């Protein structure tokens, strides 16, 4: 819209652009975010949200968004500039701005309904089970909430909707019973071939350690001290960094 120069010149710094930003942000970012919040809530918490209340909260939020932001377009085209907090009466903007204020309250109510629903469901919602929404993707194949290791065996994935591939899921169970492809030593993750996604190799991931963050702080302090020309203190922290580095590498993983 604003890429058309004549239009851009006419609306720059009017309330129209404020309307445009917020309308777009709500449609493209906030609503998907809220949708994702509902969609994965059962997976994250293991409990179902209240369906009817959720639908009601959607409509309240949706109406609130339109009532808040749509009149801003009109009032911008009527000549109201952005970044004003007050103006002379009888410029023809009063009714629009009043509508927006009412809309803002409706929108807030809708958002409170959403978070109220999720908060209530977190503690009182019925157990959701692993797959309450009949999802096709892999996260619905494990328990809700998932265990820290996500899957006990590497899942077989042969389509975009692995949770609907019953054969593959049964194969996972059989593998688990036979103890095949079970991650049991240290931090490991599978790597697959680039083109076909077949299981290719096992990557060993780093073990847990608090030392890297200590090292990061020590190195940061070295450079802060160098920038503030405290060279001796910088040298001290360089020594600390060296010691931390040595301590980090002195503890070796067990020979596999």
């Amino acid at each position, binding site marked *: 819209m604003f890429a058309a120069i004549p239009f851009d010149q006419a609306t720059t710094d009017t309330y129209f652009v404020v309307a445009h930003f917020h309308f777009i942000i709500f449609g493209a970012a906030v609503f998907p975010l809220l949708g994702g919040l509902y969609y994965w809530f059962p997976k994250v918490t293991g409990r179902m949200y209240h369906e009817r209340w959720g639908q009601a909260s959607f409509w309240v939020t949706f109406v609130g968004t339109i009532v808040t932001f749509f009149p801003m377009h009109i009032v911008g085209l009527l000549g109201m500039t952005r970044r004003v907090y007050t103006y002379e009466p009888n410029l023809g903007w009063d009714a629009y701005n009043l509508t927006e204020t009412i809309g803002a309250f409706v929108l807030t109510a809708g958002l409170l309904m959403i978070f109220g629903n999720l908060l209530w469901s977190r503690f009182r919602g019925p157990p959701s089970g692993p797959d309450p929404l009949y999802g096709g993707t892999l996260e619905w194949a494990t328990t809700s909430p998932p265990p820290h290791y996500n899957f006990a065996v590497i899942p077989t994935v042969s389509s975009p909707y692995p949770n609907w591939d019953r054969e593959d899921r049964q194969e996972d169970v059989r593998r688990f019973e036979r103890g*095949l492809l079970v991650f049991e030593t240290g931090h490991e993750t599978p790597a697959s071939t680039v083109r076909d996604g077949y299981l290719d*190799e096992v990557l*060993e991931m*780093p073990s847990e350690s608090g030392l890297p963050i200590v090292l990061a702080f020590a190195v940061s302090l070295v450079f802060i001290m160098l920038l503030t020309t405290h060279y001796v203190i910088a040298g001290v922290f360089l020594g600390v960094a060296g010691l931390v580095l*040595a301590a980090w590498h002195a503890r*070796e*993983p067990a020979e596999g």
Partner: protein
Amino acid sequence: MSSASYAQRVARPNGWWGMAVFVATEATLFGTLIGSYFDLRFKAHHWPPEGVPDPKVAVPLILTAVLVATSLPMQLSVRFARRRLAGLTCLALLVALVVQCGYLAMQIHLYVDDLHHFSPSETAYGSIYFTLVGAHHAHVFVGILLNAWLLLRFATAATAYRVVGLQSTTFYWHFVNVLAVIVTVVQISPSL
């Protein structure tokens, strides 16, 4: 991971990948330094500027050849370490370390000598010369610290973890040695 059903090909270790990324960033650093060198050079009427002596040719070339030769004992140490021959690994590492220390000592001597003849803060030539050459010496110094650490570790035993460290460090040294050739050629280029 337990598996009887498929051939397990373990990926290159994380340490190797970490070093690969590090080498890539350091290569970028030297790319910008050498780029700056030639940018300044092609804008200058006299390079080096008047009052600054032409860079020496013979000694830096010989020193570089000596440093590049240490790629051989480094690679040998990896071979020994893979067979868990801790003693021979240490010996190869020690040979490399002694030569590298000698190299660095000579280079620092030349560096200080250059500082007596021209300043890094008076001409663009001096500025980029000392920055480029000094950056390379700093990389040699880091490599020496890595080798000293590995020598201490392999003095007790050769473990899989330490072998990865040695492989990565050898990778680093090959990079530093290639860099030595490039930096030296740039350094002596006004006298060629």
